[in-house]
């Protein structure tokens, strides 16, 4: 059995580092450097706690009745007690007979291409020692990377700032460096052992020495460079770099949000990349306009300056640079405004051209969507006025255009009156013109309220794949594989269905549902006391959950009016009332996936859970048809007439179409029994029964 030397090394480094850290922090405290003290303690105690957790976790002996060990762990003395255990096991190993041995099979390292397998007996003591060694090595790694690395950087930084290396700090830095090197070394060895796990690997001493030297030089140089760089760096450069980085990130991210997903494929066909070029600076503008007012809030700055508990004086002195930061953010706003405006010039031009000029192209087809009833529009320009008047008309009649022009004018006036000449000579002109920022912010807030940017809805994406369907744009709606695409502004909330039914689509973080469950809904604007149950009609696979509400009484009518469904135009999301949701609660329909053949019977309003079931079945079928246990669905629907459930009829029809396309028309067979017929309807159907009409 190998002497557990690594355990001793780990323990020595751990104890040495923690002890020195505590001593150093007490010297910082007496010198009054609270921040240094706090940071030193943090980097010493955090890995300490993590090491205790690690040791306890690996040994898993908390539940074994050893309260003393647990207590010592809590007192942060875990490594010491474990080391004692290790040596106890080591020295008592040969004395007793092992109750059992385990047999390991390892291959020898290949010689001449040939490696043989060797069996070895591993006694219980050796196995325990192995566990201890690996626990300590893991503890060393945690200590090294989470504790010693930041600790070394910090102490070296302090040395550079104070221009001297005290003895305690010097010893501490050496210990930290050794600890990091040891941790890195253990990582290396672990990597080798994992890679050659089948083999019996023994790492020679020379290898250890090589790795040790390599790592020590590598880490030492890197830490020195890092510390020297950060000590030269003016502290104010950091927030500026962070701010620039955030700007760049937001620009890139939102560019991709509008340039990549298939949801905006048709928007991009209409507008080109100008859509993404307009939305990316819009996101940056949001961010910068958030920041611009902060550096000039005098009361806030006074408060921050006064609160000495907050930060060191060096950091608080950066508050003196508030005007510089304000100007930097202002120039960034001006830049992004320029990009945004120019991109939208292209957008408006293309939208109007698509509506008027383009004939027979896909842009024309896309722009024509929305002319017929039942279609949703993609091109927000509906009037056919040609450019250049068309562009002007759009800019001044739409809220986004008008507010955009006004706030850009306000911004330009603010900037021209802020030049140094004007500021130095005529301060009042600068000061009072700057108050146009109120106009700017009001305009900015309402600028996007129209939700002009449209993307294809998720439902439409399921039926109509833009990549395949874009080529045959002349036949949308006529062929079953490419129905007319539907669009909505972000996000769709209330969808009106015919015959006094409306659908409420909602999203809530963390909401999980199963098929056919129901929720209780309250709408405080209508009534504070009433909670009504509604079955969820969306499938769990969708990213929103929806309920279909039919207007039968005063509460549903109240919600209908509150959601503005009676109005013709699209409702802005911020106008919709607050809705409280309780649930979801379970019902019997969750078992539908456990059987091969199911029969679903729904009567009247009871059909709603099956909307969820059928949609979910559809999603699962699309995902992986073979893993679905369900092979056949018999669906029976009884209702007075289909008027109340037109939306469900549409769903059934689209499902049937999809099934036919996938050559599995036998999957779903549904029978509808209408109990509310009268003679005239019967005659009507008899006359027209040859036509393809299913549900009136």
């Amino acid at each position, binding site marked *: 059995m190998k002497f557990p030397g690594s355990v001793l090394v780990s323990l020595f480094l751990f104890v040495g580092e923690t002890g020195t850290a505590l001593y150093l922090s007490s010297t910082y405290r007496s010198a009054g450097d609270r921040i240094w003290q706090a940071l030193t303690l943090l980097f010493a105690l955090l890995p300490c706690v993590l090491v205790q957790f690690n040791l306890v976790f690996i040994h898993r002996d908390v539940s074994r009745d050893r309260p003393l060990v647990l207590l010592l762990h809590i007192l942060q003395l875990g490594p010491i007690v474990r080391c004692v255990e290790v040596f106890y096991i080591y020295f008592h190993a040969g004395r007793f007979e092992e109750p059992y041995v385990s047999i390991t099979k390892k291959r020898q390292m290949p010689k001449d291409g040939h490696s043989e397998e060797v069996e070895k007996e591993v006694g219980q003591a050796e196995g325990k020692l192995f566990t201890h060694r690996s626990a300590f090595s893991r503890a060393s790694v945690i200590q090294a990377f989470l504790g010693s690395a930041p600790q070394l950087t910090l102490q070296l930084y302090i040395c550079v700032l104070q221009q001297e290396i005290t003895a305690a700090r010097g010893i501490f830095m050496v210990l930290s460096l050794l600890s990091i090197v040891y941790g890195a070394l253990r990582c290396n060895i672990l990597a080798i052992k994992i890679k050659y796990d089948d083999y019996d690997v023994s790492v020679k001493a020379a290898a250890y020495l090589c790795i040790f030297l390599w790592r020590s030089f590598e880490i030492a140089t890197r830490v020195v460079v890092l510390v020297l760089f950060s000590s030269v760096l003016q502290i104010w450069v950091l927030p500026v770099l962070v701010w620039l980085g955030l700007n760049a990130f937001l620009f890139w991210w939102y560019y991709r949000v509008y340039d990549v997903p298939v949801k905006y494929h048709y928007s991009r066909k209409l507008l080109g990349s100008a859509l993404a070029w307009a939305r990316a600076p819009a996101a940056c503008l949001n961010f910068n306009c958030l920041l611009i007012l902060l550096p000039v809030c005098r009361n806030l700055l006074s408060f921050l300056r006064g609160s000495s508990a907050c930060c060191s004086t060096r950091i608080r002195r950066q508050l003196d640079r508030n005007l510089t930061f304000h100007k930097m953010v202002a120039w960034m706003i001006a830049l992004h405004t*320029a990009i945004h*405006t*120019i991109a939208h*010039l*292209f957008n*408006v*031009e293309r939208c109007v*051209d698509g509506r008027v000029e383009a004939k027979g192209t896909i842009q024309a087809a896309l722009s024509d969507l929305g002319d017929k009833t039942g279609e949703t529009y993609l091109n927000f320009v509906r009037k056919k006025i*040609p*450019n*250049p008047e068309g*562009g*002007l008309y*759009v*800019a001044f009649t739409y809220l986004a255009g008008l507010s955009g*022009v006004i706030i*850009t*004018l306000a911004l*330009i*006036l603010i*900037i*021209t*009156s802020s*030049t*140094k*000449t*004007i500021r130095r*000579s*005529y*301060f*009042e*002109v600068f000061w009072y013109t700057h108050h146009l920022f109120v106009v700017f912010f009001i305009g900015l807030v309402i600028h996007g309220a129209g939700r002009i940017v449209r993307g294809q809805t998720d439902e439409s994406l399921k039926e109509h794949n833009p990549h395949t369907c874009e080529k045959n744009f002349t036949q949308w709606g006529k062929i079953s594989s490419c129905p007319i695409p539907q669009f909505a502004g972000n996000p769709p909330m209330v969808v009106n269905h015919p015959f006094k039914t409306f659908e409420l689509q909602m999203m809530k973080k963390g909401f999980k549902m199963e098929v056919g469950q129901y929720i209780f809904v309250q709408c405080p604007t209508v009534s504070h006391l009433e909670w009504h149950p509604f079955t969820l009609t969306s499938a769990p696979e969708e990213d929103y959950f929806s309920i279909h509400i039919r207007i039968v009484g005063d509460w549903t009518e109240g919600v209908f009016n509150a959601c503005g469904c009676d109005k013709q135009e699209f409702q802005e999301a911020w106008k919709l009332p607050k809705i409280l949701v309780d649930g979801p609660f379970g019902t019997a329909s969750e078992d539908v996936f456990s059987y091969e053949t199911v029969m679903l019977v729904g009567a009247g309003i009871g059909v709603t859970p099956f909307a969820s079931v059928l949609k979910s079945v559809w999603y699962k079928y699309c995902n992986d048809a073979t893993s679905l246990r369900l092979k056949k669905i018999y669906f029976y629907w009884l209702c007075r007439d289909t008027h109340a459930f037109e939306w469900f009829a549409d769903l059934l029809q689209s499902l049937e179409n999809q099934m036919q396309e996938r050559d599995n028309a036998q999957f779903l067979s549904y029978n509808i029994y209408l109990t509310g017929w009268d003679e005239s309807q019967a005659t009507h159907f008899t006359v027209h029964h040859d036509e393809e009409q299913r549900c009136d």
Partner: protein
Amino acid sequence: MGRIEWAMWANEQALASGLILVTGGVVAVAAQFKGWPFAAYAIAAGVFVCLLEYPRGKRKKGSTMERCGQKYLTAVVKVFGPITRNYYVRAILHAALAVPAGFLLSTILGTACLGIASAIYLLAAIRGEEWNPIEQKPQERPQVGGGTIKQPPAMPPPRPPADTRKKPPAEVAGQENPIPVTIEAE
């Protein structure tokens, strides 16, 4: 601070409008939007406005910071005399220049800004302001000691008191000036 000279702000605003006109015009011409001839006009008008507004006028009170390199344009603008000196003319000129650019969406922002500049110039003109060129003054060497010291001291230290030191410069025994010293005209 005193009275505000509106022409200073109008000048900044007009310069900015010129730049915006040029930008909008370039975008529309490059992308060949419908009605791009208006944009071509806007580019020309924008350049003209920039050149006209670049030289800052002289303030009545206090010193004026020149814009970098403005003296060449000052010479040109000065030539037109009363046309460029009077701010009523400038106000009407800017208003007239702005109008044709208003027919295109790309340049309408320039129109609005130039219109505002024109309005501020009108206000300046009503207050009786005028554009005066900033003249170049010849370089003045600052006089040291009020003109009493014209020559370096004739004798090296230690020097005898002043009244015994009054010797004509030509008879200096101890020092010869390696570089001839000329007496400056003021």
